[in-house]
């Protein structure tokens, strides 16, 4: 037994342990290692939360397994699930429908959001009030939005009551079956999405308008440019990065459209409002086809990755163009 400087006696084994800890502490504190610690933590988090689940998804996609059997009974099936997905008509039709919904919804959200942002920017009174009001929809929980719209869309509900004077004038039956007619149900989904997410495009454009250099606009005004010339020749080109960001962010989200579908129509009537996210959810959580769902999600990841990279490339290109213009 030895006596330490503090007067405590410690065993030689413990002393060796303390020495090792001290050496580890010293090693971690060294310049070479310390600067790498944050990266190790981030990488570790990445591995645990993204890489391992991703590899598991790939592994599951190569098995023949439905969750109505224990996982231990799963057998390797190669690329069968991928073939099954690619041969599934509903997979392709739901992808097509998703692009249709996303395309129409995002276009409307961009137009309305841009218009509202422009109006609020030029507003001289109650700017904060309008900004708050236009941002509210985005902050409402999707399930509340879904429930509200399901009440609005009922065939004797407020929307049809509002539309009936106009529709009856043209001889159209005012009882539009918003949730049960295949075409009307698609528009019901799009309208609900536009109502909720125009707030986001509005916010992006509002910040875009706020960051426009005043000097350039004033200079154009001094040089005799009309308001429309200032808008088309000065403001709009400078807003291109904001537009690109709004398009990419909203498109990425809209391609995952799920909430309004499950809350309003459950993909129906038939499959007329079934998006690819709903298709996947149904296959996995309703039918327990985990392997099939895993294969479909990998294929979607590949498809959407191309789109995302194209979007990011567009943003960078626009930003560089604007920076070059300066």
């Amino acid at each position, binding site marked *: 037994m030895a006596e330490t400087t503090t007067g405590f006696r410690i065993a030689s084994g413990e002393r060796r342990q303390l020495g090792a800890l001290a050496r580890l502490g010293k090693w971690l504190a060294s310049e070479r290692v310390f600067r790498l610690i944050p990266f190790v933590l981030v990488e570790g988090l990445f591995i645990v939360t993204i890489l391992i689940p991703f590899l598991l998804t790939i592994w599951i996609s190569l098995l023949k397994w439905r969750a*109505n059997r224990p996982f231990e009974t799963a057998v390797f099936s190669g690329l069968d699930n991928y073939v099954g997905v690619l041969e599934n008509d509903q997979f392709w039709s739901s992808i097509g429908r998703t692009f249709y919904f996303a395309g129409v919804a995002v276009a409307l959200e961009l137009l309305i959001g841009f218009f509202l942002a422009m109006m609020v920017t030029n507003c001289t009174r109650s700017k904060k009030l309008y900004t708050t009001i236009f941002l509210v929809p985005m902050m409402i929980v999707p399930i509340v939005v879904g429930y509200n719209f399901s009440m609005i869309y009922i065939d004797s509900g407020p929307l049809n009551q509002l539309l009936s004077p106009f529709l009856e004038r043209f001889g159209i039956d005012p009882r539009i*079956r918003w*949730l049960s007619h295949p075409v009307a149900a698609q528009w019901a989904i799009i309208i609900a999405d536009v109502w909720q997410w125009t707030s986001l495009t509005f916010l992006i454009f509002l910040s875009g308008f706020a960051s426009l250099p005043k000097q350039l606009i004033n200079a154009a005004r001094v040089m005799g440019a009309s308001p429309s010339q200032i808008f088309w020749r000065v403001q709009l080109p400078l807003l291109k990065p904001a537009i690109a960001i709004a398009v990419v962010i909203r498109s990425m989200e809209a391609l995952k459209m799920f909430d309004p579908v499950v809350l309003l129509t459950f993909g129906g009537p*038939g499959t007329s409002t079934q998006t690819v996210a709903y298709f996947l959810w*149904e296959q996995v959580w309703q039918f327990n*086809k985990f392997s099939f769902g895993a294969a479909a999600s990998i294929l979607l990841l590949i498809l959407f990755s191309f789109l995302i990279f194209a979007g990011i490339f567009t943003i960078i290109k626009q930003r560089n163009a604007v920076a070059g213009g300066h």
Partner: protein
Amino acid sequence: MIRALSLLAGLSLAAVIAAAPAQAQQDPVAQRAVEGAKAYIKDKNLTNPKLTILLSSLYNNSFPDFTRKWEELTGVKFEIVPLGYTDIPAKVMQEGVSKTGVYDIFNDFPYTMPDAAGAKVILPMDDWVAKYKPDFSGIADGLKFQQYYDGKIMNMVNDGDHLLLAVRKDLLENAQAQAEYKQKFNKDLACPDTMQEWKRQAEFFKAKAGETRWGVKFEKDLYGALGYRSINFSYRHFPAYMKGLPFDKDMKPRIATPNGIQAIKDFAASVDDMPKDIQGWGTPQIYPFWASGQAYSAMSFPSIIGFGSSNPQSVIKGQQIACLIPGQTIDGQLVRRAPQAAGTGYMVSAYSKNPELAYLFIQWFTSPSIGDEAVAHSKGFWDPFRQSNLTDKAILDRFGEQMVKTTIENSKYAASLLLIEGNYEYFNILDKNLADVMNKNISAEEAGKRIEAGWNKVTNDIGLANQQRVWRKGVEQGIYLDKF
């Protein structure tokens, strides 16, 4: 007045609850469960016993009254995890993968049972049934046998959610309507015996807002019929139209046969007598619409009659008749099939730390005395289903004698939907194609072909041999009433 009524209702409920232990003592099934639970706790030396149930949120306002009572009797505490019934199957299957053991009991439709049994996330209860002897007497075969999967008891039911036909008494008994109907069809106006007759009545009882017919002025449109025609619901009603089983003994679908095609056509044609938006409606729309007096008839869960009687906004109080499910004529015989469209059952989790204790609660809760109390509970959604309901005053007061008698009589025709693995996928394929026919996107013949192909794919994906074996066993047992 309202306050006085509320007070009276509260006192009645309190009296029912207070009387429970005495009733349970007279009920040997409930008593055995309570004694069994006490003995189990003692044997296992459990200091703070607790059970957790994944409960359909519909029962969140009624079920706790029973768990409190169970705790008083046995000392076993309860944790209730409420969840929407559409989300429960996925949650059960998740437990099959994650094996957390957080739940002791699962509560859901019997139709969740096959996949859960396949995944081995629920336990067979046969040994406990042999040991503690529950009482299934007085329950019609179609309801009793849906507690079984692959010949084993995996689920115990306490609810008769088989479809019946609710009809407007004031219109059915209207002398002018009766005379006109008799003259037109040479038949007395009464509860329809066949689906064809129901269709005829639904076409007959239609009126536009402002119109006066049979001496009655209609302020709003009157529709001939109501029924569930939306996705996730159509499949629950379709078997009433199908003559016979959906598969033959080799699991070959019978949907594309002439009988199947005709069933699709009849099912799709029924929407002509219903509100235009019916394909988007579920219970939250159908029940209030019925209570608003805008329909002559409704094929529905039995609780629609209770809603029509008790809803403060209802204009049809005292104006409803419960009718037996209309049937089909097969080889000159009237064959009625009341699909058990929903219903709730209770299953024991395979990962429960105290599965036997979980079973004992289920036996106590589904026992004749406590089960009757549940059916009578004013905030519950349990429907009458066993013979003892006929003599239970609280149940008769709640639902009305005519409705209880009809429901119990109707339970003789109660037949399960599909109780085989992958059933939700089979149902979904049927629903989507029925919707396409109702929307006139495809013909009934095309739908028959598509459903047949889809069902075959599911069968092969899960395993033909397994599906055939379980299907045959179920049919032979009498789950579906029809035989091969």
